[in-house]
């Protein structure tokens, strides 16, 4: 048993990480599906999209060969419509609400149709937005993730000069560094960022981090500095690394953070990422699934997901769960890690407590309680995917009101500091890309009001 990289051939890596849901090959294929759409009035799909894309309209536009109009319809509600079409958990959003479900028929493939129009727009660089002349107003945005980019786009179109400060050297946020590689490629993420900024009025300053004590090569910025230079600021820095398990053995070699693991995989190339023979993944959310499936796709022999509750309570969607099952990942339900054992500083096994379900907790889900029984799993790698922790320290240092690190905002998207707004994962603690995009729009609208452009 050992942790090692370079387990597969280039072809195998490519095969394992290619797009799991390829796009419509032809306009005929897209139109056959588009023509199934009933064109519902006050459509449930639109209502179930956090950004409220006018789904029947954009689908009808595909059917009438007005693909440009279709892309525009999508982008005015969701400038990351292309990315969302690839990463949204649609079974609990638009497609889950499609009225065909009520007929026991397959829902319309809304995401795939959305991908059809938006990819065309990206590839052919359609100019669908005209930026108003510069108003001279300046807004700073922290973080070039979905929320920051969405906010920036709305503002830029209205003639605001936007500067985004991003600590990484690439844009896209978790879209670029977090989401599973078989959903989006680095090239796609880059093209999406470029498409958004091509409207003009958006400058992204990479390697610029809000906060202090920066490692070499990174430019620091502070809130007072921003307040001086800009008319308003939007905080869209997301959330940080995985919460610690707080169990013995967490420091052993072979215990890794899912977010870091996926960051490496997305950023450094598959072959360079080490993975164990026998991997345990702690958690059953989207991140856990992504860590498990991608470990398997990197060549791990056995991957086991460990979850405290049962299938009924799991936070990931059915679709994601099926991905893990199809990749050959195992799940142990009602199990909670209590200790990681090692030898010579390296992970050797994972000890878990068997759980049972007790009374419902604050989230309404029945909370797991220990049975006193334990079991041990031989593993050489443990991936922690038990939820990301907010940047609590930073937020407190900035004196921004928060709830356990999640920034508190009022109904206008404003924080307790005048002129400072926030949205996305940094506020909601970590949801989906589409929620972050909607937050960015709302933030932008609040800022436009604040700076007197609305």
């Amino acid at each position, binding site marked *: 048993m050992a942790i090692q990289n370079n387990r597969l051939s280039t072809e195998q890596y490519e095969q394992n990480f290619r797009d799991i849901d390829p796009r419509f090959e032809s306009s005929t294929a897209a139109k056959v599906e588009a023509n199934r759409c009933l064109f519902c009035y*006050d459509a449930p799909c639109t209502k179930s999209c956090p950004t409220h894309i006018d789904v029947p309209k954009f689908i009808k536009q595909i059917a009438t060969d007005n693909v440009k109009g279709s892309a525009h319809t999508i982008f005015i509600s969701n400038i990351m419509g292309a990315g969302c079409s690839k990463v949204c958990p649609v079974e609990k959003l638009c497609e889950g609400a499609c009225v065909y479900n009520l007929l026991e028929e397959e829902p319309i493939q809304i995401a795939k149709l959305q991908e059809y129009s938006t990819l065309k727009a990206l590839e052919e660089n359609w100019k669908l937005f005209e930026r108003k002349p510069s108003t001279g107003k300046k807004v700073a945005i922290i973080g070039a993730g979905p929320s920051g980019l969405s906010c920036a786009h709305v503002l830029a179109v209205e003639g605001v000069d936007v500067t985004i400060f991003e600590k990484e050297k690439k844009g896209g946020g978790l879209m670029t560094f977090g989401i599973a590689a078989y959903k989006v490629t680095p090239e796609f993420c880059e093209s999406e960022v470029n498409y958004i900024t091509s409207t003009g009025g958006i400058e992204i300053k990479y390697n610029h981090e809000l906060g202090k004590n920066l490692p070499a090569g990174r430019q620091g910025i502070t809130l007072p500095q921003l307040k001086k230079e800009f008319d308003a600021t939007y905080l869209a820095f997301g959330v940080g690394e995985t919460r610690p398990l707080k169990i013995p053995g967490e420091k052993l070699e072979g215990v890794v953070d899912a977010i870091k693991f996926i960051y490496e995989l997305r950023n450094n190339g598959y072959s360079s990422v080490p993975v164990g023979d026998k991997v345990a993944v702690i958690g059953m959310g989207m991140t856990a699934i992504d860590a498990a499936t991608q470990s398997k796709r990197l060549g791990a022999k056995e991957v086991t997901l460990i979850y405290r509750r049962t299938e009924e309570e799991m936070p990931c969607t059915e679709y994601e769960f099926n991905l893990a099952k199809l990749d050959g990942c195992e799940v142990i339900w009602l199990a909670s890690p209590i200790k990681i054992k090692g030898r010579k500083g390296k992970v050797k096994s994972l000890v878990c407590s068997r759980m049972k379900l007790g009374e419902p907790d604050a989230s309404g889900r029945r909370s797991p309680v220990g049975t006193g029984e334990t079991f041990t799993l031989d593993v050489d790698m443990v991936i922690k995917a038990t939820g990301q922790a907010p940047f609590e320290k930073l937020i407190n240092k900035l004196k921004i009101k928060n709830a356990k690190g999640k920034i508190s905002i009022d109904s206008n998207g404003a924080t307790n500091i005048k002129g400072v707004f926030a949205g996305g994962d940094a506020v909601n603690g970590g949801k989906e890309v589409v929620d972050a995009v909607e937050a960015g729009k709302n933030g932008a609208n609040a800022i436009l009001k604040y700076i007197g452009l609305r």
Partner: protein
Amino acid sequence: MADLTCNFLGIHSPNPFWLASAPPTDKKYNVLRAFEAGWGGVVWKTLGTQVKNVSSRYSAVNYNGSKMMGFNNIELISDRPLEINLREITEVIKEFPDRAMIVSLMADNNRNAWHELIKKVEDTGAHGLELNFGCPHGMTERGMGAAVGQDPGIACMVVEWVMEAATIPVITKLTPNVHSVVPTGRSVVKAGSNALSLINTIQSVTGIDLDTFVPNPNVGGKSVFGGYCGPAVKPIALKMLATLSQDEVTNKVPISGIGGISTWKDAVEFMLLGATSVQVCTAAMKYGFRIVEDLCEGMSNWMEEKGFKTINDFIGRSVPALTHWEDLDINFHIVANIRQEKCIHCGLCHIACEDTSHQAIKLAYGDPYNTYTIIEENCVGCNLCQLVCPVDNCITMVEHRVSPEYVNWVEWQKRGLPLNDH
């Protein structure tokens, strides 16, 4: 299997499904394939003075992803030498003596030409003749086709010439490019035509290429009006057929129904409105001859369900149900009802009624599903909502008579009954 045999003026065929005079019946090769597939008869592609065709010849109207909902052509009559056609007709009749062989004709506009052509065609052993008075393009400019069918006087004259020579049954094929098919229909029946068939194609422009700005079909950058057919024309053909079935002169002769027939249901509808046989062109051109299998099986199953022994048991059966507007019962009233357990909340009924009808469907907002209910006092019973509803039997129209008595419009006016009840 029900008895599908058809006797059309003594022309027998094992079923009432004939191929209309068109490319599918253009030569021996096709017709043999059609008979092998099971078609009851053919009307051979129109013969006359040999012509030359152009390309392209066809165009179509697609609808919501469904191709060839309407079909259009600018073809002329047969472009093959007459002698070859005649020889092949003779050969096919020998190979398939049990099938109907009718030959479509369009001679030049003089008595001799018609007489000569009829003589030659009868020599093949054909069972009947169909006079093409309907082709709306190419031939009309030469005073033939629709130019004949559009003028009851000329049509009468030509039929008289034909009847002087013909010894086998004569069917006159009418053009729909008239305000009513009845005047020409009457005129040719009075002149001796033994039967009628309709419709030929309807003049049309199917569309324009939005890049080249040339209407289609495109013949080297130019186009002409074409003849429209296929599913799109069926309702028009049915109406025209019904007018012949209602008229006391034209309803004395058998009619072969044509226009947009693709399924056994379409065929049954034509027959319910008085057609003795039906002819098919576009559907065969789209799918090939194999469609005849379901035409036969579907009609047979339906006949058995309804207890009809032969096709004569139902031919013309729906004609009496067509009446004049003045005779409709004004006290008959229906009101829409939405069966909530079937509703999928698409809102199509609501928006149709709200925007374009009588604001009779109430919307109660829900997330994500709205609830839609009928406001009965606003509903005029137009049944638009039922038509747009995508779910079978979700919206039903429930009878709510205004009063038990039958009162028609004439009576209504006589009694001075109120108009503004809505």
